[in-house]
């Protein structure tokens, strides 16, 4: 029976894919599909449905699915004005968005390395095209090319890692790999270390951790802002879900080997993300570096890997998804057909011309910076306490220091909005209703996660506690 319900999810998600081509209100259709998927996942909660032994709808996967569905709904709502203004192909946009969302959900549920690889490709190929969907803009196409090239390069490494894992353990299923590695008395062979390293490189590319982050600022700046919001949150959530599943279940017996590497990478990611972020003048690029830094915080939680660290990953992903989508949604509304309006100076005096947008942007930026009473504060606090509990005091110190530095560049935008007057104020069309509602909803979500986090934290702890 469980399999049937799992197949029902797949069918509902597939139903959402069928939207393209028709001259219909495609966005709402996709939204209906996503709500259907949400209902199905709600019904599946606590069932531990497994199909073919390679796709598992356990509570952990379902929690990530809920985050991804929220990301999908908000992206659909925020995409409308951008598509209209830029004259983008509507059907293709929504179809690609839903396809890659399907890939993300599959990635969260996959328990087999090959299925993870396939899901990774499904989501990446959709996002490559979405990045370059503004074909008349050289920047957009260039961003797509850079993202595509590095993405394909990284997935080759990831696949090579799978091949070696398969060679060493004789299987690509995570549970069997885990058993084989745990049963080993000796220290891991060089080939096993190589396999683990290659898998790590593949994941690090997708979550934009530091030596592998070069594509991030370019891709985030070149893509239309609605796409950037989608890929900075959705891809990161899905990649981290699979990352945590692989490294905390199958490769958990090798924790001693990978923890040093993750330590260094987490520290570098946090430091470089914030330091370079300070130097940016484009708000989009600044948020790209901030998203690199946020990957670093998530890596800290992954490294701590105690019970609070694990639920901190999920809580952080949820908060980050809402906040970043909101911030890029505002950027998307400020953009105009022939001007990106994403420089810091473009935000001067926004409070006087667009008080609501400025207020919403303030909420999102403060949450990203980790101010109470917003969700970002609780999420960061949670990660740093779990790091200290796990004995990673230095990492926690670096994390706190870098988030203090990062507050500088978030506040700079806010100062521009409230305290400077603009010489040439932006003239913007009125904000479309759907996008406005979506922004307000995500702002309320951020506040809710900040003020009353207990419920969501309990869910996160319960969902991750069932599998690792």
């Amino acid at each position, binding site marked *: 029976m469980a399999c049937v319900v799992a197949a029902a999810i797949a069918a509902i998600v597939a139903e959402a894919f069928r939207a393209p081509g028709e001259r219909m209100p495609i966005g709402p259709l996709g939204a209906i599909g996503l709500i259907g998927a949400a209902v199905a996942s709600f019904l599946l909660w606590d069932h531990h449905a497994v199909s073919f032994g390679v796709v598992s709808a356990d509570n952990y996967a379902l929690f990530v699915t809920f985050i991804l569905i929220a990301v999908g709904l908000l992206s659909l709502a925020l995409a409308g004005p951008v598509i209209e203004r830029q004259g983008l192909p509507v059907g293709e946009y929504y179809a690609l968005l839903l396809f890659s969302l399907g890939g993300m959900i599959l990635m969260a549920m996959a328990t087999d390395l090959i299925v993870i690889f396939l899901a990774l490709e499904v989501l990446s*190929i959709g996002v490559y*095209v979405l990045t370059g969907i503004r074909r008349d803009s050289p920047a957009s196409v260039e961003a797509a090319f850079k993202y595509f090239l590095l993405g394909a390069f990284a997935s080759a490494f990831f696949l090579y890692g799978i091949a070696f894992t398969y060679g060493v353990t004789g299987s690509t299923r995570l549970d069997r790999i885990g058993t084989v590695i745990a049963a080993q008395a000796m220290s891991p062979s060089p080939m096993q270390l190589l396999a683990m390293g290659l898998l790590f490189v593949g994941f690090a590319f997708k979550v934009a951790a530091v030596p592998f982050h070069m594509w991030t600022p370019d891709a985030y700046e070149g893509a239309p802002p609605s796409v950037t919001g989608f890929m900075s949150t959705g891809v990161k959530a899905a990649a981290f879900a699979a990352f945590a599943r692989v490294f905390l279940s199958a490769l958990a017996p090798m924790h001693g080997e990978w923890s040093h590497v993750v330590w260094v990478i987490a520290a570098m990611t946090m430091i470089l993300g914030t330091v370079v972020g300070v130097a940016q003048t484009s708000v989009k690029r600044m948020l790209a570096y901030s998203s690199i830094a946020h990957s670093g915080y998530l890596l800290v939680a992954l490294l701590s890997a105690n019970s609070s660290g694990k639920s901190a990953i999920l809580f952080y992903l949820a908060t980050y998804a809402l906040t970043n989508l909101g911030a890029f949604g505002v950027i998307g509304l400020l953009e105009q057909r022939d001007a990106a309006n994403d420089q810091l100076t473009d935000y001067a005096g926004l409070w006087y011309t667009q008080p609501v947008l400025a207020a919403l942007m303030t909420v999102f930026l403060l949450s990203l910076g980790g101010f109470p009473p917003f969700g970002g504060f609780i999420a960061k606090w949670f990660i740093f306490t779990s790091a200290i509990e796990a004995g990673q005091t230095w990492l926690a110190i670096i994390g706190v220091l870098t988030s203090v530095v990062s507050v500088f560049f978030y506040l700079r935008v806010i100062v521009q909005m409230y305290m400077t007057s603009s010489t040439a104020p932006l003239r913007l069309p009125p904000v479309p209703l759907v996008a406005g509602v979506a922004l307000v909803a995500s702002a309320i979500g951020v506040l809710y996660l900040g003020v009353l986090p207990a419920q969501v934290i309990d869910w996160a702890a319960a969902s991750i506690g069932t599998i690792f």
Partner: protein
Amino acid sequence: MPTLNDYLMLSGILFAIGTAGVFVRRNIITVLLSVEIMLNAVNLSFVAFGRQMGYADGQIIVFFVMTVAAAEAAVGLAIVIALFRHRESLNPDTFTMLKW
């Protein structure tokens, strides 16, 4: 009779050639080809491992990988065409619009 090690060695060499190609070549079509070489090097090691262990999994996985590689190549070439329309050049060093 080549052994598993010979196949792995060959696959490692092919992978290294592909990686070097991505960094060294100054034509984006060749760079895409290099990525394909990397994927096929991986395919070779999957087949070799599968054969060694006597399972068919390795060969089956290769079919999936080939499908993915084809899809990737299609998207990649489409992006290259879109890029060429703007730049009239295939040299990746000229794509410097987005920096820092």
